[in-house]
């Protein structure tokens, strides 16, 4: 049953979306924890779609390699942007 994987993945993705939304609407969690959980759920959903709906599991290792590379390339950009948030005043650092 080739359809089984995608169907289960679909169910999990929807469940995670419901979890995300209800966590935010109810607002019972600590905000930082909630942010973490919501983002973790999104990454989990994305991985499920990647593996089962884009059927990455049937492709060769090259595709995985390219995907990982693409994501790795973004990390320095992300960090550099975060390290550039120093508004409004950047005071020179003395060591």
């Amino acid at each position, binding site marked *: 049953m080739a359809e089984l994987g995608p169907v289960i993945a679909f169910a999990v993705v929807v469940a995670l979306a419901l979890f995300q939304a209800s966590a935010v609407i109810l607002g019972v969690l600590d905000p930082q924890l909630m942010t973490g959980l919501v983002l973790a759920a999104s990454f989990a959903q994305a991985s499920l779609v990647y593996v089962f709906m884009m059927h990455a599991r049937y492709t060769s290792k090259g595709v995985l390699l390219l995907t990982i590379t693409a994501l790795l390339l973004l990390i320095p950009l992300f960090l550099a942007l975060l390290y550039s948030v*120093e*508004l*409004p*005043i*950047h*005071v*020179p*650092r*003395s*060591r």
Partner: protein
Amino acid sequence: MVELLTTETIWYSLFWFYLMAAVTISALVFGFMTFVVLRYRTKSRNPAPSDPIDEDFRLGVSPKRGGVIPVLVIVGGLAVLFFGLTLSTFHANEVMEDVSHSGDPAPLKIRVEGYQWGWIFVYPNGKKLDGELIVPVGKAVQLEITSRDVYHAFKAPDFKIMKDAIPGRLNYAWFRAVEEGEYLVQCYELCGVGHARMIAKIKAVDPGTFQNWYTS
């Protein structure tokens, strides 16, 4: 008399260090290149078919060509060189960036505002000059640089100081004039049609003259 620390002397000593390294290494490579080409050149203008071809000259990878040792020598050699260059760079950068290294306990603090197209200098007591910065000789001057409109870059080439003037942000630099005279200040980031004329001057005067002007 103790010589006062200036940003330009730090910069130039670092520059000569780099230049020495660059010239040495390029000379070695160029020397090797010239040697190889002259040594292995064939004179024949129109090579005959009999001109032998290296048996390894082929499509793909020749297993006989190249070991890992030259690669390691290059990587290792350059890594050591860069380690030295980087250490001296970081030291110089720290001094050039932080006015506390100037040895002056009470530097003169000036706010610099770039605009299309000119420079405004604001003194601690509120005195404001457009297009001219008057400073006393020997005193460390700290600049707080920003912009009123677009992206500019403040640079005084004689002192080898530069920082971008960006709207909404503050950047810092310091310098010290050791001789009386006029020095160029110019915008070094394209900022519109007036960019080339976005010029000001730093006028270094003796401390007495400065004090008279400043308190007047």
